[in-house]
């Protein structure tokens, strides 16, 4: 019981602060927490990245394996995104099959990667209708202190950007080669706290939020995915405002996703 009560007190406090344009951790409404990207964290993956946003930590690993293309897309490779919100990362998660929250993270990340045409799936095809590369993007949340969608998508895109196609290992080509990445979608999430729309919510801010909205942008100025979540509402002007802000934050985080040794 005490947990629910303290969460409610904290919510009231967060909303009171927001009314004065302040946040619990001292940030301004458009201030993002410190972001770091560590590519190549997992040697067993074909591509990987550990992303930290403040106290949130998400690890993504990419694995490529030969498989069969889908019957309706015989010339295209297969891309699968899966997020695990494991109980190690926060006391709110329990062991078991993926909950709707984890499925939402997977799907929103997957949508941005797919819509931005981050990788050209036709380039993954080996023999049309018979053999193609299956690209698995697995997302492992290690520390959940809010804003999992942005952390997961940054980790996933960075893992893809640093991935190698293990063609030699699977005897498909004489040498491994880098996975071709054409676009770099970056998600940016905001929450409504009263009249304020704050970027990069913490765990406590997400619990206090009166609506959450995510905008994915790419490097050529396209909005490639959006998701409104939680209980709450945004006006069209709110949406225009967060789209503008998402491009600014996206630019900075894209450089981080690309950076580091291949």
């Amino acid at each position, binding site marked *: 019981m005490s947990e629910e009560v303290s969460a409610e007190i904290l919510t009231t406090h967060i909303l009171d602060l927001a009314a004065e344009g302040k946040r619990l951790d001292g940030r301004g409404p458009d201030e993002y927490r410190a972001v770091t990207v560590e590519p190549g964290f*997992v040697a*067993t993956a074909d591509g990987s990245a550990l992303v930290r946003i403040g106290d949130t930590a998400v690890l993504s690993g990419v*694995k490529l394996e030969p498989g069969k293309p889908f019957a309706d897309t015989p010339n295209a490779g297969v891309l699968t995104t899966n997020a*695990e919100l494991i109980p*190690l990362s926060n006391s709110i998660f329990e*062991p078991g099959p993926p909950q709707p929250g984890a499925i939402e993270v997977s799907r929103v990340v997957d949508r941005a990667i797919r819509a931005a045409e981050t990788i050209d799936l036709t380039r993954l095809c080996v023999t049309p209708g018979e053999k193609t590369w299956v690209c698995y993007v697995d997302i492992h949340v290690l*520390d959940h202190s809010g804003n999992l969608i942005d952390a997961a998508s940054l980790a996933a895109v960075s893992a893809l950007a640093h991935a190698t196609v293990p063609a030699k*290992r699977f005897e498909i080509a004489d040498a491994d080669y880098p996975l071709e990445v054409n676009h770099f979608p970056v998600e940016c999430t905001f929450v409504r706290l009263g009249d304020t729309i704050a970027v990069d919510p913490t765990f406590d801010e997400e619990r206090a939020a009166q609506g959450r909205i995510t905008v994915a942008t790419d490097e050529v100025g396209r909005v490639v995915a959006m998701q409104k979540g939680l209980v709450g509402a945004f006006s069209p002007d709110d949406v225009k405002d967060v789209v503008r802000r998402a491009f600014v934050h996206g630019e900075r985080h894209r450089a981080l996703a690309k950076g580091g040794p291949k």
Partner: protein
Amino acid sequence: MGSVGAKEVPVLLSPEGLRIDGRKLDELRPIHIQVGALHNADGSAFVEWGANKVMAAVYGPREVHPRHLQQNNKAVIQCKYNMAAFAVDERKRPGLDRRSQEISKVIGEAFESVVFAEEYPRTSIDIYIEVLQANAGTRCAGLVAASLALADAGIPMVDLLPAVAVGKIAGKIALDLKKEEDNFGEADLPMALVPQSGRLVLLQMEGHMTEPELSQALELGVQGCRDIYEKMKQALRERYSTGPVGGSA
């Protein structure tokens, strides 16, 4: 990495008695430990052991879920060992498999043997072990990480639980097998030691060993555990002598 191509048995022991990575038979792989690696857990530790990367977190003592597992005279200790899909060469399907469930059970029972569970009746102490990169010996690395996470969470215990696997390669007993040695070796014997009592609370074995070899393996493993115990204590000192490292305020 060559798990798909033709399997050639590598030379596990050189004429000079050195192993594929240049180690001696009684030598551990390098171990790096960070206690308090996570912000949300009540206790946590990250262990890099050779090419293994394992994160452990402890939550509790807290309410028991599911409720019917609650015990009136002590805490229940629930352990979940899990492996990330990308932790091995061939992608592992996410979720629980029989191997993970067995490892979770024996590790949980090892900790039940050392935690003063009767101090916290009607609660649960939840231990989560996540293998992020695997290269043989993940249950031992997980045990070491979890033991330090329990200490980091302030759970009273008889002692820390160092763990290591001993194996047999090219007919010789060897400490702390890496993947190729595990794949092509003749035996694998993971163990966890209570240093204070000198007793083992986790012991498994697979392969073949003679009786004298088994005795030698046990002695080598106990010595290995004692060396790891020193590293564990050092890691705890590093965490707590310099004040909190970015811990939640």
